[in-house]
């Protein structure tokens, strides 16, 4: 067929309407967004390719659908990877194959039978067809919007005043504290996709506990003097931003402890302030980005990335940590750049020479990618110990 540009695009949209609808059904059934992301990636990739094909392919024989299909598969995979659509490979390939087959059946059989002049019109669907295609595209988009709207978690407003905890959040929701809302005794997040914002937590074993729940966001939360950790995260990557953790008087707890989530994505800790505690922010066997945080007066280390963790420590401010300011330890790989570490003190009681007031330590087989850090007013600037490696960024 010698497609016109309009014909190519209309035929394409008509062919994608059904897979798009199937993706929506899948998304609704699974309560997941990746089918919609996958369908959107397919739509974007093939429409762009259609614009490329048009001047090149004045005539497109039937067999060309096969190599072009492979090109399109590659393009869709590239888009999926670029935008981080987390679709299972087998299902994604299945959906693509179904969409391809659907396009072949439509283009070669159903559309020519439905619109008699389809072939000689170069794939154009006419006024009625154009309207139908528009509707066919708009309907899934509207449905996607509706689905998105329907999937928005319910918002629970926590009234001002003190609420006795521990508070267990056991469903998907946005818990929003009104000014002055305080939970005494801690919060336990026991469901995925929970967002907590503008809540102050006082006490509790841990201030906020997130154990194995994905998609959790803590935004503008304040934790004050828990018994152990301020924010305690295990087994899943989450997002923590604009938080305040007051660990003064808690000598053995960590301000924010993110552990054992290496295979679940990257945890983001952004613009948090931690004061006191044993370690301010610590990761074990996790992938994390720690950026724009401020950590003060910790008794062991201000920021630690250790036990085969991987990630970045950037644009943080560390002040008055005892022993070590920033640590990259135990076979971790850390990108450490544009941090400011000042006023580290010697931990002479420990008898550990690594804790002699270093601004930055890379130790025990760790790899540090170091940029321009500002390590001033510390007894020792930097230490590299026990088989570790440091690369300097130029």
């Amino acid at each position: 067929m010698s497609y016109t540009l309009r014909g190519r695009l209309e035929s394409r949209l008509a062919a994608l309407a059904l897979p798009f609808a199937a993706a929506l059904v899948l998304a609704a059934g699974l309560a997941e967004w990746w089918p919609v992301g996958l369908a959107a990636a397919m739509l974007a990739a093939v429409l762009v390719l259609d614009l490329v094909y048009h001047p090149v392919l004045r005539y497109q024989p039937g067999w060309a659908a096969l190599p072009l299909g492979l090109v399109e598969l590659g393009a869709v995979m590239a888009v999926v990877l670029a935008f981080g659509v987390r679709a299972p490979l087998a299902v994604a390939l299945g959906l693509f194959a179904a969409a391809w087959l659907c396009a072949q059946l439509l283009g070669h059989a159903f559309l020519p039978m439905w619109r008699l002049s389809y072939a000689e019109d170069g794939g154009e669907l006419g006024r009625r067809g154009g309207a139908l295609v528009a509707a066919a595209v708009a309907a899934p988009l509207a449905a996607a919007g509706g689905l998105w709207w329907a999937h928005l978690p319910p918002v629970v407003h926590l009234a001002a005043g003190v609420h006795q905890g521990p508070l267990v959040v056991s469903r998907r929701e946005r818990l929003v504290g009104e000014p002055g809302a305080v939970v005494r005794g801690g919060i336990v997040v026991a469901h995925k996709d929970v967002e907590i914002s503008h809540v102050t937590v006082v006490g509790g074993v841990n201030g906020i506990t997130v154990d194995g729940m994905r998609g959790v966001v803590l935004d503008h939360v304040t934790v004050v003097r828990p018994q152990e950790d301020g924010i305690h995260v295990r087994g899943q990557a989450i997002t923590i931003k604009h938080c305040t953790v007051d660990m003064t008087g808690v000598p053995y707890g960590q301000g924010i402890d993110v552990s054992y989530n290496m295979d679940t994505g990257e945890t983001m800790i952004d613009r948090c302030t931690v004061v006191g505690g044993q370690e301010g922010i610590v990761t074990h066997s996790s992938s994390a980005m720690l950026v724009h945080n401020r950590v003060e007066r910790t008794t062991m280390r201000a920021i630690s990335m250790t036990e085969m963790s991987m990630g970045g420590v950037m644009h943080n401010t560390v002040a008055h940590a005892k022993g070590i300011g920033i640590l990259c330890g135990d076979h971790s790989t850390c990108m450490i750049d544009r941090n400011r570490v000042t006023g580290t003190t010697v931990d002479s009681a420990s008898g550990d020479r690594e804790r002699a007031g270093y601004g930055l330590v890379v130790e025990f087989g760790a790899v540090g990618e170091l940029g321009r850090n500002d390590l001033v007013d510390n007894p020792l600037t930097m230490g590299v110990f026990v088989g570790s490696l440091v690369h300097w960024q130029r």
Partner: protein
Amino acid sequence: MARVAVVGGGLAGFVAYLTLLRGGVEPDEIVVFGPEADPAGVWRRRAAAIRQTHMRSESDGHCLPSSFPGLAVREARRRRSLAPLARSVCDRYHATVPDFLDHVDELRLASGWSPRPARIERVTPVDGGFELDGHGEFRHVLLATGHPGLAVPEELRGDPRAVHAYEPHDYAESVCVVGAGLAAATEWLNALAAGSTVISVRRREPLRRPLNVPRPYLTRRGLAAFHAASPAHRAATLRELLVPSYPPGRAWDEPLARAGVRFRVEPAVNGADQVICATGFVRGAERDLLVRRLVEEHGVETADGRLVLAPDATVPALTDATRTLAVAGVAAQMAYPAADTLAGARYVAHRFLERCRTR
């Protein structure tokens, strides 16, 4: 006033009839005028004359209103094989002539096709329609009168050795084939197979391409610029597009290569025992009595001897909101360069249906 008339009972008229039925026009609203009951009658005789075995057209070279299902699907179903479909997607499928004729017969019997045996020689515009030579008035008329006759070079008229390729003939010991299109190429192979020595006489080297016209001209992609051009420019384009051609492929080349000295090209007709004129059809609006009268009596515009038509193959001077005069077949080439093919017949039929359905 009756609704729709199709003047011409050949393949183009048949395709139009089937398309009108498919489009919801009632059978009793359609009158077809044609001299014989078999819509493929003329085509069948010509194909037999040149011993054509396969169609030049591909899977969609059929009489159905939509391009799908084509003849490849029909054959695949009959043979329970995917091979015809595989050949079709590679543009390598060409139905056999018997298969095509069977398909026409099936459709003819199933559709209730029964043309009125009348020859229409004059179309007279009347208020809201056309009067057809004393056979009634119709609001929408499609002229599908076919080729006006066989073309024989002037210098060969009266030559007792000369026979047109589309007339029944056998092969003499030495055969001169005049022409360079599909019929000529078919005759080269036929005559060689019959043991003759073949002399090809042609004014230009034949063009090798799968179909009569480049494929983009079969769709709006190529047609858009063609339709936008002036009539003179369109006529010039047609002269370029419609030069004699036949398909590429070993099936055509190998017999010629094997023939050796039994096949040669010469610039002029020589003393061969037989001269086969594979020179196609006479061309021009003046050669068809009905069309000539339209031009002479109603001032219908022509360019380079061809009717100037709107993109939907209607005659602009005689078509308005209330009535339609459209043209199919070779006379519609100013609307669709491949109008004398089955795809062309379908193109015109679709547009004619659109007018009949909406007016």
